[in-house]
């Protein structure tokens, strides 16, 4: 059994830019999400999320010790902060575009539906 959930419920993310290249660090809220996301959150999946921006390349780097992935997307910033016609030439908001993607996850890995609210997933240490 699988269930579609938004990546937002499984991970947090931060985007950064250099020129026309965007990177998005995706960090699992729980270490147990790392393996299933490694199978599902592929370069092709991320390229699909950003298809409107026509990335010329999408590369994924895995960081198992940090339960994280780093995605590097080429040529998706409309020329970058000094050339873009968009409001957010840095692409700072785009981590949340990726987090809003829906992903099929095994039911058993997810918390019961009534506990799956983001509040329960904060993964905080404090």
């Amino acid at each position: 059994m699988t269930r579609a959930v938004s990546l937002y419920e499984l991970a947090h993310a931060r985007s950064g830019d250099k020129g026309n290249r965007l990177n998005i660090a995706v960090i699992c809220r729980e270490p147990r999400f790392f393996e299933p996301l490694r199978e599902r959150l592929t370069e092709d999946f991320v390229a699909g999320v950003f298809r409107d921006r026509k990335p010329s390349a999408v590369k994924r780097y895995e960081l198992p010790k940090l339960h994280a992935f780093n995605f590097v997307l080429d040529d998706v910033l409309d020329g970058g902060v000094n050339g873009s016609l968009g409001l957010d030439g840095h692409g700072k908001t785009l981590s949340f575009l990726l987090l809003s993607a829906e992903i099929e996850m095994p039911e058993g890995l997810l918390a019961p539906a009534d506990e799956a609210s983001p509040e329960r997933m904060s993964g905080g240490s404090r």
Partner: protein
Amino acid sequence: MVAQQVWIGAAAGFAGDRPDSSGPLIEALARHDGPRFLIFETLAERTLALAQLDRLADPARGEVPSLKRLLWPALAPCAAAGIKIIGNFGGANPFGAAAKIKAWAAELGCAGLKIAVVAGDDLRGTFTAADFARLETDGTLLSREPEIISANAYLGADAIAEALDQGADIVVTGRVADPALVLGPLKHSFGWADDDWDRLAAGILAGHLLECGSQVTGGYFADPGVKDVPGMDVLGYPIAEVDPDGTFTITKPAGTGGLVDRRTVTEQILYEIHDPAAYLTPDAILDLTQVELTETGPDRIRVTGARGWPRPETLKATVCFDGGLLAEAEISYAGPNAKSRAALAIETVVKRLAHLHPSLQVRADLIGVVSVFGDTAGARLNATIPNFADGDLRVRFAAETADRAAAECLLDEVEALYCAGPAGGGGVRKRLTPRLRSASCLIDRKRVTPQISLLEMA
């Protein structure tokens, strides 16, 4: 004498950062003995080119424009506590900045401070436009050999370390690799060798985590209900406590807002990183794939496992040139059928410009519906337009051109929607902004010679 531990605080992560961040950092650093440093990172890619334009207008200017706002509150307390200051706030005119700092220090009654200037990053005398065109990476923006406004190499930590070795209390630089602001004082304090790659890499990682200021202490992080951050209005900026072997703890001053935990540090470790096994800097190549984070107390994360590889033979340089004009104009529609009126406004302006300036590419955004997530070609907006709900909508148009008449035409056409557009269009704002474009080059490091000059105070 080799230091036992070094404390480094980061008071600014960009030129527009908060000027009151340094107060709590200085208080916290002042409680320790031994080497303590306060760094200011203020040079984004474009900041230096803007500073160069300032300098062309007035030879005394060209420093980072927020220099006084950021540095003034820190100067006297740092001098009193023996905390040394390092910043790339020299921008396009490190000597001019140093002269200003010297005058302010005198005004504040800080006697005997030694100010060092690190220069040599400016490449315009060494390379021609044709050279830069040949050396460009990741693009061909320079192939037409535009008139170059600024061209600066990212210098490494050596010159900063040497300036501190010579007794500098304040080190003013232009373009340096951001982590070098931290690695420089660490090399100075611990005497790390030039080929001690793992330690250098650890220092680079500490610098990478500090260089964006509060981005490691809860800034650019808060997501209410999911990733809560206390005290965003009084965020504490970061401190690294570094041991001689390069392991370090990231923390923040007691009593400040923000937080330091695994999540804030992990997000910042990967910020603006491409290959995590090979982060290229002038001083070493950092491999952070084996980095581990340990929570050792409230707001304390110990960072271990950085590995280093020999430094590259090339240095990165950023080259800035004229980028024409950015024209932006906005108008609002709200209430019943607002979405159709907004869509008609877009259609109208795009049709008008297709007649008047056929070569001008016009971007349209619908703020609140599709804007920052959208693409300039409009694929996402066009797919969304039939389906979104009415509301309080703001239409934005943008174009870039070297042709001022075409840029002004777009602004005029949006304003004309007041009368000749759909019903109920209001709140037009329009703006023309000169642009600077930037490109990256890789240059032979042997062609770059950092220079250190010491200004003695009376």
